[in-house]
């Protein structure tokens, strides 16, 4: 900077030094004035305070989410360890936390984290609710990005609203024109100077956020720097759009007071009003289906499945009677102490049931998908309504780049569906649904340890019952001990692993090309109109 200061030419020399140096000179002057101005200092100071606070809040929230993630992982491993039959092996897949939620919370904390991979269910949505009181959920995620979009967006308009009309009022513009400075150079210089001031403010704020974040215990190497850089650039593009909108207002008006008013109202409409009104309007025009209706549909499918299963069980004939224990705490089943005939019958039943469940899983998924598609349509419409405002675009781009968007959740669900398929393939490859281990951890061919029906009648009923109870207790204690010692453990090391990689940044960029293009177009459009108007701007008109 000191080098630039030395070669800062006076406006007389600028004419001779060529256009470029004129632009530089004007830009430098603008930058200096902006940086010293009260409005920039006030807003940057406020922004810095808020950035620190929101980064801290982001770190807190990240920790809560990371803790949930660890809890869920632990639960998932525990479940796998405790499973004694293959039907109980329903791996719980856990969505990792995007570290950049500290800068941009997006959808990260609003979605649940777990999905069950089982043959009876195709993952379509996360199964747990987001953490925290539902009362808080309706407040938007207030994060560093929001602070920057609100406050630096305001600063962008505040720096440009009087760039033309204000200078005209103070007479400086007439002076510049009379010095025969080319108008294009003045325009470009003003733009570059303003943008330099904005970029500095943005850099300062981002650096503050990063410092707070790194000081909060995050390792430097674990920060995804390419994503951070892209996120920074998208914010800069947004600020440029807001600056040019302010500049456009400035050339369209002739008094600074009017420009300010129009500028502020425009800022309000673009940053607050349109993003709030868009989704509302969309929810009126395209109704989203109620979860009550969906739940009823699901219950109906459930009943249908049970009826089919009953029918199938009847077609298998009555099950052979023998004493034993059946537990199905969650979806899987675990049987003990039955006779081989009973196991044979049950195996037929559960294998057929597994086929039925897969069929129904597809139908449940289709129903859910239809419901989600309608929601997605509505969200798309809401986005269209708000796409007039650059805020909608920068929000979308920023969510995507920080890995906290809906697409990232969908990417996880897609991976979960693929995993489920590989799990089913694993079942089928090893014929698990038709093996005894699908339903029991008893050794094959073992007779039921309980006395048979025909042996009854010799003793008194009461005495027989007591003996049976004691036998049952002893047997169950033995099974529990064997399970604990690991004799009965399943070879779960063989099941496919869920190796999840979050959506790569290139793919994220690909998804938001239209929004980036929209931001560029807003920039170009405002710049073009403002420049054309500026070429014919009348410094005398009042």
């Amino acid at each position, binding site marked *: 900077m000191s080098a630039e200061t030395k070669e800062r030419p006076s406006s007389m020399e600028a004419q001779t030094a060529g256009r470029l140096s004129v632009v530089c000179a004007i830009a430098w002057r603008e930058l200096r004035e902006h940086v010293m101005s009260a*409005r920039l200092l006030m807003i940057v100071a*406020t922004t810095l305070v*808020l950035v620190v*606070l*929101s980064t801290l*809040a982001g*770190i*807190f*929230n990240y920790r*809560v989410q990371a803790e949930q993630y660890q*809890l869920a992982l632990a639960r998932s491993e525990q479940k796998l360890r405790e499973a004694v039959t293959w039907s109980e092996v329903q791996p719980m897949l856990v969505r990792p936390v995007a570290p950049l939620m500290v800068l941009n*919370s997006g959808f990260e*904390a609003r979605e649940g984290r*777990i999905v069950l991979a089982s043959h009876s269910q195709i993952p379509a949505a996360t199964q*747990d609710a987001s*953490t*925290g*009181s*539902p*009362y*808080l959920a*309706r*407040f*938007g995620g*207030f*994060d560093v990005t929001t*602070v920057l979009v*609100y*406050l630096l967006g*305001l600063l962008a308009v*505040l720096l440009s609203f009087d760039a033309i009309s204000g200078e005209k009022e103070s007479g400086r513009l007439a002076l510049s024109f009379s010095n025969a400075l080319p108008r294009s150079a003045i325009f470009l210089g003003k733009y570059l100077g303003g943008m330099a001031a904005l970029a500095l403010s943005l850099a300062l704020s981002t650096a503050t956020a990063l410092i707070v974040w790194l000081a909060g215990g995050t390792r430097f190497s674990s920060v995804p720097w390419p994503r951070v850089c892209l996120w920074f650039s998208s914010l800069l593009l947004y600020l440029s759009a807001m600056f040019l909108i302010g500049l456009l207002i400035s050339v369209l008006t002739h008094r600074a*007071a*009017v420009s*300010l*008013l129009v500028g502020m*109202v425009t800022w*309000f409409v673009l940053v*607050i*009003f349109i*993003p*709030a*009104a868009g989704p*509302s309007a969309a*929810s*009126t025009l395209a109704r*989203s*289906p*109620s*979860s*009550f209706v969906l*739940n009823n549909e699901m219950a109906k499918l459930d009943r249908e499945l049970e009826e089919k299963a009953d029918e199938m069980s009847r077609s298998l004939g009555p099950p052979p009677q023998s004493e034993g224990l059946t*537990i199905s*705490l969650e979806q899987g089943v675990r049987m003990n102490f039955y006779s081989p005939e009973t196991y044979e019958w049950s195996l037929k039943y559960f294998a057929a049931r597994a086929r039925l469940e897969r069929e129904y899983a597809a139908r449940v998924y289709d129903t859910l998908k239809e419901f*989600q598609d309608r*929601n997605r349509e*509505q*969200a798309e419409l809401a986005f269209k309504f708000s796409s007039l405002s650059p805020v909608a675009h920068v929000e979308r781009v920023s969510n995507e780049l920080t890995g906290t968007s*809906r697409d990232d959740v969908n990417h996880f669900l897609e991976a979960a569906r693929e995993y489920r398929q590989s799990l089913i393939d694993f079942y089928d490859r090893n014929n698990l649904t038709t093996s005894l281990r699908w339903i029991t951890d008893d050794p094959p061919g073992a007779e039921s340890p309980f006395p048979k029906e025909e042996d009854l009648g010799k003793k008194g009923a009461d005495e027989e019952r007591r003996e049976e109870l004691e036998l049952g*207790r002893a047997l*169950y204690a033995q099974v529990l001990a064997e399970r604990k010692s690991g004799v009965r453990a399943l070879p779960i090391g063989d099941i496919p692993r869920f190796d999840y990689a979050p959506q790569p940044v290139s793919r994220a960029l690909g998804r938001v090309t239209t929004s980036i293009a929209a931001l560029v177009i807003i920039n170009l459009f405002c710049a073009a109109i403002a420049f054309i108007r500026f070429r014919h701007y009348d410094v005398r008109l009042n």
Partner: protein
Amino acid sequence: MLAIYWREIRELSRSLRFLIALCLFLSGMAINGFVMGVAYQGLSQMHRQIEAQGEERVRQAAASLEQLAINFNEVFGASERGQALILSAPPPKTLPLVAGTEAGGLHGAEWNFPNVAQPADLGVWNPELPARPAPDWEFMVRILLSFIAIILSYDLVVGERERGTLALTLASPVPRRRVLCAKFLAVVTLLGCLLAAGAVLSTLIYLVRGGGPLVAVDYARMGLFVAGAILYSAVFVAASLLVSSRARSSVSSLTVLLILWLAATVVIPEGGTAAVQGSVRTVSDIQVEQRVINQLEGQVNEMIGEMDAFVRPDVAEARKDGFSSEQNYARRINQMIASIKTTLDEQRASHRRQAGVLQNVLRLTPSGLFQLGSERLAGVGEIREQRFLEAVDRWSDQYAGFIKEQDRLDPSSPHILYVQNFMSQRPVDQATVPRFRFEEFTLFESLKNAGLDWLLLMLELAVTLAFSFIAFERAPVSETV
């Protein structure tokens, strides 16, 4: 003083900014009417469906007392027909006023006999949409009208000073505080007119689009809300006058005011929410699942260890030893239900604690006070959900009491409550079965709930106004160089 008052009203009402404000506010209120009308229709339709479904299930179950119990319990699969009963509160009629959490869905509970209730998902809420506040009157006033208040009044003093007319205005033989008073009242009058026009427009659209019907109490709430809204926007007018008296230029006045406005309406409430979310811990679904599974697994293992804690298929045989095994089973089941309820209650309590801390953070700013005051005045949001869940608990006790009483009256019943085949099989007159009804807050209760918040807001207005009077008394008449 009146002359200044009328002059300000005349000038402001003809200004471009008032026109823009009018357009923005009225369009916002019109959107509100449409959105809330449609939302009300959808929600009340869902509520009617839920009620009809519940009614039908009670009608069927009334065939025997036992079914009235076991048909409504799916936690332990006491019967194949066991399914939780869905209860819901109707959508509040004053939905456009303050939508609270209600615009996104009904307050609902999945209730399992005898007393496990957990919040049910009865949303029309779209998870694909970014989180935005509902566009209710409260939002329109809290964000938009306060913004308009600033836009209308940021240069009331400094603007006159810049134009050089302040000396002229003050030259009239009126004390300074009266001049300020006139300006203050002029802006507040205009804001009041704007609000009244918007309220009428929104209400009309709401009624036409299927909202309501509104009754006297609802109109009373609306009237009180409008009064409160004027009080709230007056805080911003007073703050504007304060800043305006001290500011060097109208540009710096507006800049300062906008930053203050952003802090008060957006940053502190939203930032506070984020901070509370991260710092006040709640019990998550994963934790609930973990706890419930642990409790159940422990209890199931114990039960299997006991082996005799089962229901025998033959009632007559069970009768011989005085239903000892079945009683043991019922006791176990009830223990499990109780432990699930405890876990769910803990989760609910942790949510309530978090919401409570948030409310106190919100109270730091006038807009938070206004938000809470309006929510409580309209009787929606968190307190309504609490009232609903409490009503569910009360009703569920009443229902369980009814079943017990009816079972006691049947001498042939083994009185093993909640166990299939071991309860009274007598049919029940379905009209006598207690039904769940949600009672809204009365206006008096609402006023009591909201009183503190409104009082604090009045206090804030008085303080701001006092400061602005002091500042205006000392305000320089001409621009200082």
